[in-house]
């Protein structure tokens, strides 16, 4: 076991874990931040997307130890108190979710996308979502929500 420390959603955290612990399990099981989901565990679905040092990554394919010392942001760190982040607000407004399983990953990917590409067109949004699967919505409203968020951000 090794002590792994990092900053998560602005707070300094640490936990004693095995070197093989994945970042997603560190977040969910050691920090009880269960907003980050595990859909496939094989880097396909994007349900586990979080930001590490400002970049969106699949946390099921990152070791907690690789993120030691990093700045991590999860879905729990997006809202400002009771005020939802504009991308969260847009997903709510445009029905960008049904069961909600893919949503944390979708939103973290979308926030990262809009950081890099402030005004994406629909084709760009769809390409940028290639690493995030949704089994419910058919993507249409997700794309709409991201487009709408880009207009207010």
């Amino acid at each position, binding site marked *: 076991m*090794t002590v792994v420390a990092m900053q998560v959603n602005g707070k300094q955290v640490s936990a004693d874990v*095995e*070197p*093989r612990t994945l970042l997603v399990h560190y977040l969910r099981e050691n920090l009880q931040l269960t907003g980050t989901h595990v859909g496939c*565990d*094989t*880097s*396909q679905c*994007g349900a586990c*997307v979080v930001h590490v040092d400002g*970049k*969106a*990554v*699949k946390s099921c*394919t*990152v*070791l907690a*130890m*690789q993120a*030691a010392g990093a700045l991590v942001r999860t879905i729990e760190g997006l809202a400002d108190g009771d005020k939802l982040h504009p991308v969260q607000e847009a997903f709510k407004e445009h029905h960008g979710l049904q069961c909600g399983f893919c949503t944390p990953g979708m939103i973290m*990917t979308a926030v*990262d*996308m809009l950081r*890099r590409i402030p005004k994406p067109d629909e084709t760009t949004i769809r390409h*940028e979502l*290639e*690493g*995030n699967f949704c089994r419910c919505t058919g993507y249409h409203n997700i794309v709409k929500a991201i487009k709408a968020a880009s207009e207010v951000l």
Partner: protein
Amino acid sequence: MYQFEYHRPKTLDEVTALLARLESPKILAGGMTLLATMKQRLAAPSDLIDLQDVTGIAGISVDAKNVTIGAMTCHHDVASSKDVAKAIPALAYLAGRIGDPLVRHRGTIGGSIANNDPSADYPAACLGLGATIVTNSREIPADDYFRGMFETALKENEIIVKIVFPIPQGAAYQKFPNPASRYAMVGVFVAKTAAGVRVAVTGAGPGVFRMTAMETALAKNFSAAAIDGITAPVEEMLQDMHASSEYRAALTSVMAKRAVAGVSA
């Protein structure tokens, strides 16, 4: 995943020393391939040596002749580099078509070239541009480096440090992505270089290869029409659940023609 010890050295010398000392160590770059393999228990290294803090092995530099990319440079950095886009636009384009944005934020060129997946994209750019793979002990021309499915000229514990791509007169990459994984079902890289035309094909065969018949035809007449009727050997193509060997051979011709048209454009 089996247990292992984790190391995060800061210099190449420390990496070399660890590799020599430890029982069955493996280098960890972006982890996009290695961690997946370890989860499936197809690999069980005693130790992982994470390269993320090692100095001098990440980053991009461009001079009049070459684009040099450090092994630990992630796909996203290559795809979004203005310098790469100016010197070898086809290389930036290729990097931006690897997997998805999340994979591109972690996956590295060194990891991709070391792994040499038969459907990976970077091997096509290395072979198509006649790149040099620079390791901690020597320089290996791409023509000698790729040895078929997951096989390379790397010796045990040899570390890729950077890849040097000579800037061509023109180049283009076209791939038909597997709709699920985005790996190349077939990808063709065509380059017009000072030393002649080069055509490298990935995804189609058991490893990246050059289509010399196309190169000869294109040297005489650089147009899509010139390679009409030149097909990849069906019996040497891969065959799996995604595509038959006939389909891959046909795709090779189509992607090659599109790439040639892309260079001329």
